[in-house]
């Protein structure tokens, strides 16, 4: 038993007065201080969090109903706009930025009584797979401090594993929730594209960006998603939600699973392959119908992603020009110099790399060959997923080909770093929901199992993932 009870139980106990929200906040802040050497957190939100906790305890004392997440502390990745602290996206260009409004996801969580206590580290602007691209610091993996926690939501994943809070929020554009979940042994949930509003979350690649929770159990992830999901008039890409995401523990016997052929075999660390195969055996033993499926275009997904993602990044990051907010170079002789000096000094290397690559693939003469081509192969991929889901309920494979790598191991080779996303990007390109759950260790390091469902089938995926989690224990 860890420090934290299941989220729903914490909320019930705060509502009944058995637990005090203020004590929970103090406990969270205490653990953050105690474990600060892991560098999971950029800033804490002490004053606002304590004031909110006191207000919640007073509401309870008056017999008022607080909500589904009454008094539950959480940590937001630092690309969520949150009151009470700076919002930096771990980039120098946003250092000192104070959000004038809050993300819809944060507003919804607060409306149910949750309390944001800190902002987690990430690769700057969520560009990366290790948190090493953070302009401030690298987060250490809780299982081995010489290794990365994965990224880009590495601070959020490490924070949850270090028990700094019962849940943390991440964003997943090409695997940024699932990869760190896999590397740290936590649960990472990437919802269907459009299910959670992105209003107030710093944009990376808008056609694949999603928001989701990092937790220690599937149940907790579902509880958080249930609060955040749904249409938002401030984000016109949001879709209709299902009635409830709280997982109903259904009989998994007879469910059809497709083991993705392209995700097994070549390029996968033997220890990872072994743990995933063990998991498949355990599922088979419970009566799950396991078959192999092939999606022939999957090996192309990473190439598609590394055209589409930088293209959208170059567009989304054009707003950082030093005129309206963020870092501004003040000694420029004219407006042009103000733009270019601000961006040169403010952006880190990976942001520059992606902006430039994106500018290239979108530029006149290359647009058809790169961007349009990638968007067309993307359609082919969508068709292959549709075909796969006509014969199976869920797709299964490893979340990543390796366990957590060493700090510094891939940082000088951008292409090698990009390849860590090889098993996660496809779900983003097709908009499908996907989850990473821990299934064991390889040489002492966690291995994540990835389950992918059809677009819009989040509740079914969470139900199956919860059952799978039970089978693995």
């Amino acid at each position, binding site marked *: 038993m860890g420090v934290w009870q299941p989220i729903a139980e914490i909320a019930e106990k705060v509502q009944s007065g058995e637990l005090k929200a203020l004590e929970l906040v103090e406990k969270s802040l205490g653990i953050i201080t105690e474990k600060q050497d892991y560098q999971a957190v950029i800033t804490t939100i002490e004053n606002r969090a304590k004031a909110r906790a006191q207000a919640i305890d007073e509401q309870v004392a008056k017999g008022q109903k607080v909500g589904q997440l009454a008094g539950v502390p959480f940590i937001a990745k630092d690309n969520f706009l949150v009151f009470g602290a700076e919002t930096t996206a771990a980039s120098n260009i946003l250092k*000192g*930025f*104070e959000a*004038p*409004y809050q993300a819809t996801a944060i507003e919804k969580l607060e409306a149910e009584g949750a309390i944001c206590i800190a902002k987690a580290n990430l690769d700057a602007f969520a560009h990366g797979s290790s948190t090493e691209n953070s302009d401030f610091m690298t987060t250490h993996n809780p299982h081995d401090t010489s290794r990365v926690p994965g990224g880009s939501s590495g601070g959020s994943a490490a924070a949850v594993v270090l028990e700094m809070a019962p849940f943390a929020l991440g964003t997943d554009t090409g695997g940024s929730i699932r990869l760190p979940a896999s590397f740290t042994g936590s649960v990472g949930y990437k919802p269907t*594209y*459009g299910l959670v509003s992105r209003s107030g979350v710093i944009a990376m690649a808008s*056609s694949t960006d999603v928001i989701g929770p990092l937790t220690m159990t599937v149940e907790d992830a579902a509880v958080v998603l249930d609060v955040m999901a749904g249409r938002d*008039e401030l984000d*016109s*890409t949001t*879709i209709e939600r299902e009635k409830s995401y709280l997982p109903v523990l259904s009989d998994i016997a007879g469910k059809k699973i497709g083991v993705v052929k392209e995700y097994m075999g070549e390029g996968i660390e033997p220890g990872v392959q072994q743990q995933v195969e063990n998991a498949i055996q355990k599922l088979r033993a419970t009566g799950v119908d396991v078959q192999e499926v092939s999606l022939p*275009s999957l090996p*192309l997904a990473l*190439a*598609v992603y*590394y*055209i589409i993602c930088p293209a959208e990044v*170059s567009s989304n990051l054009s707003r950082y020009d*030093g*005129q309206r*907010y963020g870092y*501004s170079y*003040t000694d*420029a002789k*004219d*407006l*042009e110099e*103000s*733009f*270019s000096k601000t*961006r*040169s000094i403010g*952006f880190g*290397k990976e942001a*520059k*790399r992606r*902006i*430039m*690559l994106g*500018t*290239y693939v979108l*530029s006149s003469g290359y647009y058809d*060959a*790169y961007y*349009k*081509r*990638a*968007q*067309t*192969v993307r*359609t*082919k991929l*969508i*068709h292959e997923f549709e075909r796969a889901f006509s014969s199976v309920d869920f797709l299964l494979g490893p979340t990543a080909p390796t366990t957590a790598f060493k700090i510094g191991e891939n940082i000088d080779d*951008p*292409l090698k770093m*990009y390849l860590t996303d090889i098993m996660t990007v496809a779900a983003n390109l*097709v*908009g499908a929901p996907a989850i990473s759950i821990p299934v064991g260790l390889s040489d002492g390091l966690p291995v994540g199992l990835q389950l992918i469902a059809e677009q819009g089938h989040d509740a079914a995926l969470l139900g199956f993932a919860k059952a799978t989690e039970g089978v693995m224990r």
Partner: protein
Amino acid sequence: MAKLTRDDVLKLARLARIDLTNEEIAEFEGEFNEILQYVEQLQAVDVEGFAPTSQVTGLINITRKDVEKNYGYTATELLKNAPSVKDGHIQVRKMIG
């Protein structure tokens, strides 16, 4: 596909409004060619019969009534991060000479 040259990198830097050091230019030239060589595999894919996908929600033309809504923020709050403010507006350098 054509190899990216140093001049191409400089042109991209100009378009993206980023000044690069000589070191960065050399580094990016090598890295971009490596990345472009990797994505080159898409050229050989048979995409006959497929149209490009730009979004996956299936939503079309989400609109709302054209009425003003008060979110409760003051102009001062919304301008608090601006580097230079004058008379309730963001002040920038002269744009037209």
